[in-house]
């Protein structure tokens, strides 16, 4: 069991950092004390790698094609997902829709709260101090850094995920996607569009 924990992975070249050693050591101590098992940790890694990251695009693609689901999703994101068969674990999901008048963007200024069970791990930029510092105060300048420019006629609505709720953006469905399957629609609903720093492109 201990051999497996210490086995360096090919993608991680070079000696392990002190923090990597610390993290592995803590995990082993916790396992030895019977507080967790290696299997639990492996299972979480699998979920984060394979399951969670695909969900957001599928949920929003479904909302684009099914008005009743869209309505339900906007009313109660967690309930709509549960009814559709997706367990979002602890995430209290609120879905916010972009309209021709309003563009939504999400941040957690205090740490890195993010709907992980819907989108997987947050990108490094979302967790970065400069995103957390700046997007609440100068959202248009920040969006521009991501290549997203919105006219003054569109209001920017920033959501600071600072307590118990989690957010996903329902982008505007672009022209030219009429008749697309949900799978095709999901393919343009990238993670960045669901956090609000990018717009989906047909």
């Amino acid at each position, binding site marked *: 069991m201990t051999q497996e924990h210490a086995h360096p992975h090919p993608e991680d070249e070079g000696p392990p950092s002190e923090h990597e050693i610390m993290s592995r050591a803590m995990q082993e101590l916790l396992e030895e004390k019977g507080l967790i098992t290696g299997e639990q940790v492996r299972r979480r890694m699998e979920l984060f790698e394979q399951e969670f990251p695909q969900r957001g695009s599928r949920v929003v693609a479904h909302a684009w094609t099914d008005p009743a689901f869209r309505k339900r999703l906007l009313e109660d994101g967690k309930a709509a997902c549960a009814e559709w068969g997706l367990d979002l674990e602890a995430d209290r999901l609120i879905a916010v829709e972009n309209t021709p008048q309003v563009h939504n963007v999400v941040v957690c200024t205090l740490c890195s709260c993010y709907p992980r069970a819907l989108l997987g791990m947050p990108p490094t930029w979302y967790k970065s101090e400069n995103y957390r510092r700046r997007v609440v*105060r100068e959202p248009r300048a920040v969006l521009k850094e991501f290549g997203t420019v919105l006219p003054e006629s569109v209001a920017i609505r920033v959501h600071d995920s600072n307590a118990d709720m989690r957010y996903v953006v329902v982008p505007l469905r672009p022209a030219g996607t009429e008749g697309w399957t949900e799978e095709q629609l999901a393919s343009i609903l990238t993670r960045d569009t669901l956090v609000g720093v990018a717009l989906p492109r047909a």
Partner: protein
Amino acid sequence: MTPSAYAPAPQRRFNVGERVRVKQADPPGHRRTPAYVRGKEGAIERVCGAFPNPEELAYGFDGEPKRVLYRVRFHQHHVWPGYEGAPHDVIELEIYEHWLEAA
């Protein structure tokens, strides 16, 4: 029972649309009310529900009694002096009831 993003909050001080002000306070310890909205005025956007108080959970207490959490909408130009975006830009945060006063 279907999971929900929200929890019930039958006993609450505020309702959707009401104008509120975030307390201007700087207590030590774990708080989920960012400094940038303290002292600012906004409106209740939605009631999230009653949850255990994170300020207590952070220290190993059970966070009871639960506190009501609200989403509050602020106009950006009310939050930041010299805000450079559009006049209708807004920012929305989750604020616990004990951090709010009627405005």
